[in-house]
């Protein structure tokens, strides 16, 4: 509530676009465990051609201690959740008596490259799927198990596991072909002002990245780092959970995690980050 009042005041005073403090993203390179070299700055993706001069990972907008936490798998508390998911991976569940490993063996091999291309089109299901949707589909159809809650810790941890083995690989989400309708819908959502504060995603993340919104350092809003271990709540956060929070903060009626609107938005936002390395699980504020 109080944050919103301040932002309204800011906007009406024009302070957010004029004379607000600007802090450049930090010059630094990210190498995880001294091994995985990450691309955290790169040329604009097709989706942002002409709109952003370059792609910058959210990592550059955080303080030095936070950035250091992500550089080591031990310091990165998001990896605890990956370890928990690893246990789940090898635990049979559901009436078919299978575990993920029964079909997929070692995730380091079978899941390499997967996170980088999601959300994507699923031919058999005739729909765009996010990783969460695909994991749950595997559970219900192949394992005869119950689906997990869309933003539940257990599912987010599994997505983090699948993401972790693709770290360093460039995000490469398709935007044409069968997904193009969804992609365009996502683009429209991104640029549509909503809520009492009449803000669109672009107002902050495209027009004002690098500026301070009160004490937060605005990033370009990419999702290559998801799921994210946030210092704020000391746990992993999924893309849709974060979208929901952002929409709520503009005092708009938010969509539900797993909804077609958020799937479309995730597809579009992911494509904006095409070229940045998959970082999930990353560490942010």
């Amino acid at each position, binding site marked *: 509530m109080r944050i919103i009042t301040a932002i309204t005041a800011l906007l009406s005073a024009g302070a957010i676009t004029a004379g607000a403090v600007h802090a450049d993203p930090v010059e630094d390179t990210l190498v995880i465990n001294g091994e995985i070299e990450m691309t955290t700055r790169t040329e604009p993706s097709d989706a942002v051609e002409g709109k952003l001069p370059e792609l910058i990972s959210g990592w550059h907008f955080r303080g030095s201690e936070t950035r250091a936490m992500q550089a080591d798998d*031990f*310091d990165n*508390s998001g990896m*605890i959740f990956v*370890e*928990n998911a690893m246990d789940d991976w090898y635990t049979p569940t559901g009436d078919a008596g299978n575990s993920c490993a029964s079909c997929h063996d070692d995730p380091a091999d079978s899941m390499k490259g997967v996170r980088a291309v999601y959300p994507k089109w699923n031919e058999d299901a005739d729909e765009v799927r996010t990783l969460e949707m695909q994991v749950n589909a595997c559970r219900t159809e192949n394992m005869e198990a119950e689906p997990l809650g869309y933003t539940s810790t257990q599912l987010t941890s599994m997505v983090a596991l699948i993401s972790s083995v693709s770290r360093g690989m460039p995000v490469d989400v398709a935007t044409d072909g069968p997904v193009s309708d969804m992609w365009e819908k996502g683009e429209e959502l991104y640029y549509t002002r909503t809520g009492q504060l009449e803000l669109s995603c672009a107002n902050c993340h495209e027009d004002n990245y690098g500026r301070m919104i009160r004490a937060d350092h605005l990033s370009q809003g990419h999702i290559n780092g998801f799921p994210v271990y946030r210092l704020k709540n*000391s*746990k992993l956060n999924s893309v849709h959970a974060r979208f929901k929070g952002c929409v709520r903060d503009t005092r708009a009626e938010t969509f539900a995690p797993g909804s077609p609107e958020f799937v479309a938005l995730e597809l579009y936002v992911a494509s904006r980050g095409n070229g940045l390395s998959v970082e999930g699980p990353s560490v942010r504020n």
Partner: protein
Amino acid sequence: MAENVRPRVKAPRQASAGETVTIKTLISHPMESGQRKDSDGNTIPRSIIHRFTCEFNGEMVVDVTMEPAISTNPYFEFEAVVPEAGDFKFTWYDDDGDVYEDTQSVAMA
């Protein structure tokens, strides 16, 4: 009974006699501070890990008294001397009476 509490330790597997090694420890635990309120306005009672110890072959390296101001998923980094081959033993004591342990063996290089 705290759920899903999982200790993690980073310690070298081998060292030379008398070598200084860096130890990192992490344990997943909510560290409920006793300051938060639930949606009905009732205070959620404190439930934290209040003590962490590290020993090597029975001798103390560090003994930490922990208060609610230690963050969720308590993290410690410190240095130990390894006089001989043996075991690091890590112990975390929970308010609710649970004790979590982890052991790491170190061989002589």
